[in-house]
């Protein structure tokens, strides 16, 4: 394809999957919920400087901190356990 200057990123757009019988109708399909992708696109494209893994704010931070705590804590536990396991058995 070659590099083009200022290539626009492909916008997912409102071209979502429409109803079964008449493709081409506007996105007013309500089968199993309405299309909330445009709203989410606005949320995730806000210029707030947040990285994508924290973009939603509080719930992202909590999940990240839980994962971090479990992983870092676990790594320390692992090093301790391996140290203990490496001690010769003194009977």
């Amino acid at each position, binding site marked *: *394809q070659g590099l083009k200057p200022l290539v626009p990123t*492909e916008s997912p757009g409102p071209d979502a999957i429409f109803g079964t019988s008449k493709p081409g109708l506007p996105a007013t399909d309500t*089968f199993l*919920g309405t299309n909330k992708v445009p709203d989410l696109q606005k949320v*995730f494209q806000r210029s707030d400087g947040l990285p994508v893994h924290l973009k939603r704010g509080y719930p992202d931070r909590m999940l990240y901190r839980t*994962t971090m705590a479990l*992983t870092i804590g676990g790594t320390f*536990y692992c090093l301790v*356990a391996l140290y203990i*396991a490496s001690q010769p058995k003194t009977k």
Partner: protein
Amino acid sequence: MAHQAHSYHMVDPSPWPILGASAALLTTSGLTMWFHFHSPYLLIMGLTSTALVMLQWWRDVVRESTFQGHHTPTVQKGLRYGMVLFITSEAFFFLGFFWAFFHSSLAPTPELGGQWPPVGIKPLNPMEVPLLNTAILLASGVTVTWAHHSITEARRKQAIFALTLTVLLGFYFTALQAMEYYEAPFSIADGVYGSTFFVATGFHGLHVIIGSTFLSVCLLRLIKYHFTSNHHFGFEAAAWYWHFVDVVWLFLYIAIYWWGS
């Protein structure tokens, strides 16, 4: 806001790679602690953190693509290469276990009674549940292709129906295989027959579960309008993986269940 002069995706700094590596450390050392010292805590921490990292990393990929638009055709091409290479590596993984099976079964040793199946082993009848499982996976290959066509034709209800059927068929296979495992007259400890049978079919079953999970996530995303009729690579990747799982089963069925009985 500055714009990039290229069509590649420069990702935001992310903690998931290093935390994923740590989770792998916890899982492997946890296995050691469980095997040798009967302590499951480290393993539980490892599996939990692995699941959390996978959840958040893939969640972020969905955010970057569907919500932020970073998956240009160039990026998608790279993802396609990546998935193809990954599936190829999995094919080599299974090749090893098929090698082990043929090594032992083509020239059965005197310890096995010089025959295959070995003396004392009553193999499963390939014309019973295993044949049904073959039909289930073949049918699921049809339904996933039907789902793909429905997506490209922008037929929402049909796509959801076909993909739901695919997922259900996958669960049906897993349930039947679990029952077969429970009812089998031989175990993994029954010599090289048991080892080759359960390790090969066991890893296959794990891949069925992984593939079913991948397809379930795609079903959820399909319902939530994430896919468009000409951009749905996540679904295509899941479908490729599912076809691969199906092909591995066909080889397993013919070699281990049928020829090996």
